[in-house]
């Protein structure tokens, strides 16, 4: 038992480190790389405030995807919104006391879990049913979908079929903050669920899941349309002017 607990302690420290360090590295890399030319997809906002609004519509509503493909939008939005609710619900394991809004969101988190799995199923089905999407799908795309579905299903099973001791789980995670190791319930479903979540955290900075930070750095979406009013020049391009 001690071995299992220790293994998960190590796993979560490791996964958290990879996630944070990997993402930080990527974000710094994106931020440091200049965008030498103004390339917003027009019509584009002409003010910074407009860009924030455009970005919010992309993040919250998936506006471009909505224009692009309604099915993918429905399933994609369902999955992401579900994931958001589930994540909020899970915050109760990580904070003490549990904030009031997080308490409120608890029941919705369950619907979120269901929406998540249904959305994923729809997205996965497209990978088999639409010949174009099938063509562009690689093994890793299936694996990531599989991983997410498995996380969702194990979670739902614990909620609805095989209950686990949530109090002990909470103690385990609270303990991690202060390296105060508490035993993890040896429930196979829980162990699987947690293992898969750790995997997700580890692959995040090395996979297409980078779309999350990527969106904020996409020049076609985050640039202000004002090239005539304001001269835009990258440091490496300015060097050309001196020669």
């Amino acid at each position, binding site marked *: 038992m001690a071995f299992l607990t220790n293994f998960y302690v190590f796993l979560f420290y490791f996964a958290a480190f990879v996630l944070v360090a990997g993402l930080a590295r*990527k974000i710094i890399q*994106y931020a440091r*790389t*200049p*965008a*030498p*030319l*103004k*390339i917003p*997809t*027009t*019509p*584009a*906002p*002409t003010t910074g405030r407009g860009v924030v609004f455009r970005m919010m519509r*992309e993040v919250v509503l*998936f506006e*471009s*995807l909505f*224009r*692009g*493909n309604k099915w*993918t939008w429905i399933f*994609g939005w369902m999955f992401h919104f579900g994931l958001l609710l589930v994540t909020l619900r899970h915050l109760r394991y990580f904070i003490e006391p549990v904030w009031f809004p997080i308490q409120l969101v608890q029941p919705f988190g369950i619907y979120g879990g269901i929406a998540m799995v249904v959305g994923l199923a729809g*997205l996965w089905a*497209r990978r088999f049913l*639409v*010949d*174009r*999407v099938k*063509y*562009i*799908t*690689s*093994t*890793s795309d299936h694996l990531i979908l599989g991983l997410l579905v498995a996380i969702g299903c194990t979670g739902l099973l614990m909620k609805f079929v095989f209950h686990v001791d949530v109090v002990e789980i909470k103690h385990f995670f609270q303990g991690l903050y202060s390296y105060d190791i508490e035993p993890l319930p040896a429930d196979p479903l829980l162990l699987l669920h947690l293992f898969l979540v750790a995997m997700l955290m580890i*692959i995040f900075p*090395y*996979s*297409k899941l*980078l*779309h999350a930070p990527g*969106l904020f*750095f*996409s*020049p*076609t*979406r985050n640039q202000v*349309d004002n*090239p*005539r*009013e*304001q*001269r*835009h*020049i*990258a440091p*490496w*391009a300015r060097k*050309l002017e001196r020669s």
Partner: protein
Amino acid sequence: MAKATFEVPELTQYTEVPSVTPGAMAHSAPFKSKEDFQTPLGFPGELVDDWQTKAIDKMGELLGKYRSLRVYMDACVKCGACTDKCHYFLGTGDPKNMPVARQDLMRKVYRRYFTLSGKLFPKLVGAEDFTQDVLDDWYSYFHQCSQCRRCSVFCPYGIDTAEISMAAREIMDSIGVGQKYCNEIIGKVYKIGNNLGLPGPALIDTLEGLEEDVYDDTGVKVRYPIDEEGAEILLVTPSADFFAEPHVDGLIGYGKVFHEAGVSWTLSTHASEAANFGMFIGSYDNMRRVAQRIREAAIKLKVKRIVFGECGHAWRVAYSFLNTLAGPWDFLDPRYPVPQHICEFTYELIRQGKLNLDKSENDDKVLTYHDSCNVARASRMGNTPGGQFEIPRAIIRATCNNFYDMDEDTIRDRTFCCGGGGGLLTDDLMELRVKGAKPRLDALNNVIQEKGVTHMAAICAICKSQFTKVLPYYGLEMDQIVSVHQLVSNAIVLTPGPDDDEDEDDDEPDLDGPNEEEETDEAA
């Protein structure tokens, strides 16, 4: 009309999404550049030794210079929203013409050499070594992208395949694999001053001819000046405007508008080209060098404003990049944006009621309007977003009585490329051009059938040349494509100057361009 050596698709009422046909366009590739065309641009003359390492190094360099490339290589989730948006896929069914699959040609190399997952588990994430086969695929399919950015409109992360095509072409050029059409043309700009390779005296001659034609036609002396120091406005226009049809009718229109505005203006032999093919090959250096000519001309001619003629990608480079590449423009009149589009100029006059327009002069036509991709999705006109859609339409409405838009899904920022943009307007890519035009022509044909449309107006030299060439393949007439300023030219009622004769000369002038179509449409 040229005989097709391939099957020309049937136009359909709505463009249907074809099923995936792997390899359908694998045979399509433009002529390769030769040493003579490579060297002036600073590229090696032939495939260099050790090309693979050099290409990877170049890719690394570009990943550090362009955030777009860096982010877009990572961010795609293969959602498929872009897969049915590219006119080349819609026209050919070749899956590698789906934007995401086109990106993947580069992404698989990126993953192999620049990502942990691709180094460790290449098979799993679809990473591949940069082999000769992959390079051949690059050459073929990155020259089946007109950099129209339609895909970027629908992508949840705004991934712009044009950025990736440009980077791929830059990488290929850097190892000696260039495309003849683009690189030869850029060389001509450096040597002679424009894409068509028209020397100064020929331009002067042509413009004198235009002045005579307009005088014969209208009885009013409209000037078409070139290299006139101290003029207020420098007009930079695609060189196709000097010779090709219907481009030249647009140029005639610009002159008439300036005449009515009462401003002095001039063309320049040094900057006798608005096009900038440096963008198509993704080369910042070459794009900058081409753009610098405009700065030089503006300084030399001591002008106060710069106005661009009708050209799509040229307007993108002008509107979005000129300030970056050749600015700052602090020596010009600060009351006007630099540069301005001729449509902005004309529209302003119309708004102020300064143009006397007789719409009935265009009553022989029922018009529609083609939004050129670079104008629609990579630039703006006027002060408000979307002005690039409204201003040209407002001009058309002011100059003719019959106007109908095409299907909403195929105009404005969802417009379809003409099929010849992005450095693909060459005869060695005729099959691609014809098939890629299908989605646009489906929509055009629809308004022809339903609304009785007879002509389509455009503000892009490439679009005009491309449609002139491909319309006949589909059983339409080549002269169904017109310039927006051709409509202005027809409708405008000129104010006679002091030395003009009062009674009009009604003889039909001979406006046929002096040149027949050249072997390659070096328009722009």
